C-alpha cells in the first residue's frame, strides 16, 4: 500500500525522525493501525488526512503526550522513548497546538520561558541574562511586541510567533504545527510561511499538519497522507498536485460540488435587518434574507461577521437598528428567545460553544429539540425511543462516524463533532440557520457533505446564512454573498459577479479605503 515517488536524496545518514509501525487504540477504536513516517532534518513535511485519519494521535505520540501501543520512534537512527512531553522536548521535539495556551497575567518573556530551566544569579532568576539570550531568537521569528509586554491582548498570530520562539529557545529540531493558519488572516499566514521557510533553511524540520491543501502544496518538501489510521502515500514536492492529495485523502475521486439551484432572490423575505449596530464591531448593517436562500457573509477576521450573527441570534443586544422576522418585529432578548422564534446557530467554536463534550452524541444532538422527545408538554418525561430514532436518523443522514449514539461526543473527530451540532438543527428545523465557519478544521470529504447538506436545507425552504473566512468556499455554496469590513457590508455579490477574487478584492479594498479616508 506504500507508494513513494521521487528520490529521497542519496544521503546515507539516518533521518531526523523515523517512526515505524506505530499503532494506538483508544478504548475499542483503533486510531493508528501501524503508520510510518520519516522526517529529515530541515525539511517541511506535510501531514494530511481526513479528520479521524490519525494525524492528531501521531502528533501526540511525537510530543510525548500519548504512548503508542506498538512501533518504534528513532531519532538520528537511535530508538528513543518519548515517555513525557519533557522527554520529547529534551530530544528536540516541539509541538504547537491548535488552541494556544498562555498564562495571561505573564509577560511574553515569562511565557516563552515557562517550564524551561532558567539562568539564575545569587539564587534568583536572572531575567536580564535570559532576555539577552532570547532577544535574537525573538527577532529572528519576527516578534514585534516588547518581551516585557503582557501577553494579554496579543493577536493569534503573535501567539504563534511566541510559541515558535519558545520552541527555538528549547533548541527544537522538529516543530509540529497543527492547523497553524486556522485562525490567521491572509497576511499573517504569509508571514508564518516565511518563518517556516527560514526555520527549514536553518535546519529545523517542520511537520506541517493542515487541511488547507494550497498551503501544503506551496510549503512542503514532502507530504505523508494518512487514511483510516494508515499511512497510504508519501509524495515528494515534484509529484505534488492538489488532485493527488485529495485522491489520497479520500481514497477515490472527489465528487463535484452540488449544482447551483435556481435563484432564490424572488422568494419571500423571511428576515429583514435594518441598520443593526453594536459598535465597535457592528456599525450599521442592513440586508434581507429570503426563504430557501444560502446567504454567504465573507470578510476578514475581525470584520464583525460573528458579532453580527450574535446580534441576530440574541446572544448580544443591538444598541440601535431593528429586525423584522416574517413581517413582525423581531428583537430576541436571548438565544433561547431566538430559538423559540425559529432561529438556529452553529457556532464557530464547536467544542467551547457547541457541545457538552462529556455527554453522549444523543444528548448533544437532541439538546435543542427536547420538547419534541417528551411524552407530553405537561409531563415532560423523555421518550427514549423517539430520542434514539431522531439521533439515528441524523447519524445516518450525515454519515456521522461514531461507535454508538451513547458515545461521549468529545471522543469524535472534529468533523464528526461539527456534524452533531448541525444535526441538532436538522432535528429542530429552524426557519433561519446561521453557520459560523462550518467547515473550519473539517476534512475534504466532510466539507463536501456539509456543503451538500446546506444546499439541501435551502432547497427545502430554510434560509441559511454561512459565515466563512475562506474565499473559496462561498462562491460554490452561496446564492449571494455579503462582504463585511469594519462592521459594515461593503459589497453584495451575486450571479456572475460572485467569485473568489471578487470576495478577496472587496474584503481588502475597504480596508485600504478606510486607511486613506
Amino acid at each position: 500500500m506504500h507508494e513513494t515517488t521521487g528520490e529521497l536524496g542519496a544521503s546515507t545518514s539516518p533521518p531526523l525522525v523515523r517512526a515505524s509501525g506505530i499503532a494506538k487504540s483508544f478504548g475499542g477504536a483503533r486510531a493508528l493501525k501501524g503508520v510510518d513516517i520519516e522526517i529529515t532534518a530541515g525539511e517541511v513535511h506535510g501531514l494530511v488526512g481526513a479528520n479521524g485519519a490519525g494525524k492528531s494521535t501521531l502528533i501526540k505520540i511525537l510530543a510525548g503526550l500519548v504512548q503508542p501501543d506498538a512501533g518504534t520512534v528513532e531519532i538520528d537512527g537511535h530508538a528513543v522513548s518519548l515517555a513525557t512531553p519533557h522527554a520529547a522536548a529534551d530530544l528536540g521535539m516541539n509541538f504547537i497546538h491548535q488552541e494556544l495556551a498562555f498564562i495571561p497575567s505573564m509577560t511574553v518573556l515569562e511565557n516563552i520561558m515557562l517550564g524551561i530551566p532558567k539562568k539564575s544569579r545569587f539564587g534568583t532568576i536572572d531575567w536580564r541574562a535570559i532576555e539577552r539570550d532570547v532577544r535574537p531568537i525573538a527577532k529572528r521569528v519576527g516578534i514585534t511586541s516588547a518581551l516585557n509586554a503582557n501577553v494579554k491582548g496579543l493577536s493569534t498570530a503573535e501567539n504563534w510567533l511566541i510559541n515558535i520562539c519558545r520552541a527555538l529557545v528549547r533548541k527544537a529540531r522538529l516543530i509540529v504545527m497543527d492547523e497553524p493558519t486556522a485562525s490567521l488572516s491572509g497576511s499573517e499566514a504569509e508571514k508564518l510561511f516565511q518563518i517556516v521557510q527560514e526555520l527549514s533553511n536553518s535546519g529545523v524540520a517542520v511537520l506541517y499538519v493542515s487541511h488547507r491543501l494550497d498551503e501544503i502544496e506551496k510549503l512542503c518538501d514532502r507530504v505523508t497522507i494518512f487514511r483510516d489510521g494508515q499511512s497510504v502515500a508519501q509524495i515528494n514536492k515534484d509529484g505534488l498536485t492538489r488532485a493527488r492529495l485529495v485522491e489520497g485523502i479520500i481514497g477515490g475521486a472527489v465528487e463535484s460540488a452540488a449544482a447551483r439551484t435556481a435563484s432564490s432572490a424572488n422568494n419571500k423575505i423571511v428576515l429583514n435587518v435594518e441598520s443593526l449596530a453594536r459598535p465597535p464591531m457592528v456599525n450599521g448593517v442592513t440586508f434581507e434574507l429570503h426563504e430557501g436562500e444560502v446567504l454567504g457573509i465573507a470578510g476578514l477576521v475581525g470584520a464583525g461577521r460573528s458579532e453580527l450573527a450574535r446580534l441576530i441570534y440574541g446572544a448580544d443586544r443591538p444598541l440601535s437598528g431593528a429586525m423584522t422576522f416574517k413581517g413582525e418585529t423581531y428583537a430576541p432578548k436571548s438565544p433561547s428567545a431566538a430559538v423559540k422564534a425559529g432561529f438556529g446557530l452553529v457556532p464557530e467554536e464547536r467544542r467551547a460553544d457547541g457541545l457538552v463534550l462529556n455527554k453522549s452524541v444523543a444528548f448533544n444532538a437532541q439538546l435543542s429539540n427536547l420538547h419534541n422527545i417528551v411524552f407530553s408538554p405537561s409531563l415532560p418525561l423523555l421518550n427514549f425511543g423517539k430520542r434514539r430514532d431522531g439521533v439515528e436518523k441524523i447519524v445516518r443522514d450525515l454519515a456521522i462516524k461514531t461507535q454508538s449514539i451513547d458515545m461521549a461526543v468529545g471522543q469524535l473527530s472534529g468533523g464528526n463533532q461539527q456534524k452533531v451540532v448541525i444535526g441538532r438543527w436538522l432535528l429542530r428545523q429552524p426557519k433561519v440557520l446561521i453557520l459560523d465557519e462550518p467547515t473550519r478544521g473539517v476534512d475534504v470529504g466532510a466539507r463536501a457533505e456539509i456543503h451538500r447538506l446546506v444546499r439541501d436545507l435551502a432547497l427545502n425552504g430554510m434560509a441559511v446564512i454561512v459565515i466563512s473566512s475562506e474565499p473559496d468556499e462561498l462562491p460554490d455554496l452561496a446564492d449571494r454573498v455579503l462582504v463585511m469590513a469594519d462592521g459594515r457590508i461593503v459589497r453584495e455579490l451575486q450571479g456572475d459577479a460572485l467569485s473568489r477574487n471578487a470576495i478577496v478584492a472587496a474584503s481588502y479594498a475597504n480596508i485600504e479605503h478606510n486607511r486613506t479616508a
Partner: protein
Amino acid sequence: MSQNAHTPRRLSPSARVALGLFARYGTILGLAAMIIAFSILSPRAFPSVSNFTNVINQASLAMIIAGGLTMAVIVGELDLSIGFAASLHGLLATGLIVSNKLPIPVAIAIVIALGALIGFVNGFIVTRMKVNSVIATLGVGTILTGLAFAYTSGVPIVSGVPEAFLQLSLGRWLFGIPNNIIIMIIVLGTLWVVVERTSIGQEIQAVGGNPSAARLAGIDVARVKTLGFVISGMCAALTGILLASRLGSGTTSAADSYLLTAFAAVFLGSATLRDGEFHIFGTFVGALIIAFGFNGLNIFGAPTFSQYIFQGTILIVAVGLSSLGRLIAES
C-alpha cells in the same frame, strides 16, 4: 484542550484502568468494606435490621438536603446557604405551629414556599447580579442566621410543640417504616426522575456541562440555574422541618452542620459510578457512607472530636476522588 506542557508521569494503561475502576467503584467498595468490617468487629450491635433502619433513618434528613444541593451543583453552582436556611426553617415551622397556632400542613406549606423563595433569591443574585455563588449563598445564609436570631431572640422554642408535629418525623405510618425514610425515598426518587428522565433534566445537565453551549442551543441558562437553587432551597426547608419535628423544638443553628455533611455526600457521590459527575444516586451512596461511618464511630465509643475529624477527612477524600474521576475521564 488539555495540552499541559508538564503533564505528570504518564500512567500505564493497566494503571489507568485500575485507577478508573477505583475512582468509579471505590466509594461502593468502601461502603461494603466498612459494613463488613463493622459487622466483624461488632457482631452484636452493628449488623441488625434495627441498627440499619436506625442509621438510614438518621441519615434521611442529610440525604434530603444533600439531594437538593446536588441539583445546585449539577447546574454548576454551590449553595452554602442550605444549613443556615434549614435552621431558620425548623425554627419558623415550630414558631408558626406553637405561637401562631397554624395547622401543621399550612405551616409546612408556608415554610417550604419560603425555602423556594430563598432559592429563587440565591438564583437571582447569581444569575442576574452575576455574583459568584459561593459569596452569594454565604451572604444569604448569614442573613438567614441573623433572621433566625431575630425571630427567637436566641431562645429556643421548646414548650407547646404538639405531638402530631413530633409524629411527622418519629412516626411509622407505612408498614412500620420510619416516616423520614419514606419521605427521603420520595424526594430522592423524584429528583432522580427529574434529572435523568425529563427534558428539564437534560437542560440541567447541559447547563452544568457547558453553559455556553447550552445557552447557544437555546436553553435559558439563568432559568435552569435558578431552578437548581429553588429545589435546593425547598429540600433545605424540608430537612429543617423534619429536624424540628425530630428534636421537638425550634433551635437556632440546629441544622447548620448539615452543610458539611451534604457537601461530603455530594462529592463522594460524584465519584460513584460516574467520572466526577454529580448525580442523585451517587449522593445517596455518599450519604450512606457518612452515616455508617458515624454509626461505627458511635458503636465503638469514639470521642466526639473524632467525628469532626472523620467528617473533615471524608470531605477532602470525596473531593479528591471526584477530581480523580474527572482527570481520568479527560485522559
